[in-house]
């Protein structure tokens, strides 16, 4: 199982997305994951592809071609606004 998290405005756009994906044994990347969401969730995917959005795997920011493994937690992070 791979868990997906969407923060900030991405969370609003991802309300109908399945946040748990069965891991099918194939090597996948965050970039490929986003591509698979494109037909069903075009607005979300457009937002995910904005250049300032970061992706993390297991709470560490990674590149979009980072390999994913069973049990990983993938989070999509828009620009932060705390403080």
């Amino acid at each position, binding site marked *: 199982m791979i868990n997906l998290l969407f923060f900030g405005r991405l969370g609003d756009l991802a309300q109908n997305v399945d946040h748990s994906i069965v891991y099918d044994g194939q090597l996948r990347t965050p970039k490929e994951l986003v591509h698979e969401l494109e037909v069903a969730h075009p607005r979300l995917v457009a937002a995910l592809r904005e250049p300032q959005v970061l992706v993390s795997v297991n709470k560490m920011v990674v590149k979009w071609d980072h390999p994913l493994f069973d049990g990983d937690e993938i*989070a999509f992070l828009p620009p932060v*606004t*705390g*403080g």
Partner: protein
Amino acid sequence: MSINIHVQHEDFDLASEYTSLRSRTSKIGAVVTFTGLVRDFERLHDDPTSGQNLHTLTLEHYPGMTERLIAEIVDEALQRWSAFGVTVIHRVGCLRPNEQIVFVGVTSEHRENAFKIAEFVMDYLKTKATFWKKVDLNGQQQWIMAKHSDTKAAAKWTEDSDE
């Protein structure tokens, strides 16, 4: 060295944090505190004319990642300037105007280090830590955009290593 980092919904008490920071050593000469408050209006962009009345502010964060990122920010500050203690508290959840939202307290031997650390931690908190603000402006919910001025504030620490 004593580092305390809390991400919490509960409010914090400046006097308690100050007392706790002060108590650690009698070598402390300087205590700097920064407290951020929720303003009653919010500029949605860098445009100074865009201010609107704010009803509530909701802070979301990424539990586990946020605390680690704050710890990294504090560690980086302590590699640049020495201190006796650093406390960072960031609130999450739904807050109202005038409520306290963030606290940074630093004790050091001399004032310059305490000021630098507090300012550095705040600049990086704004640009690196995984918090997201949503505002309710007259009933309309809206996610806040990152401010160019904050990105610039954090960048100043890398541009000028003498700072």
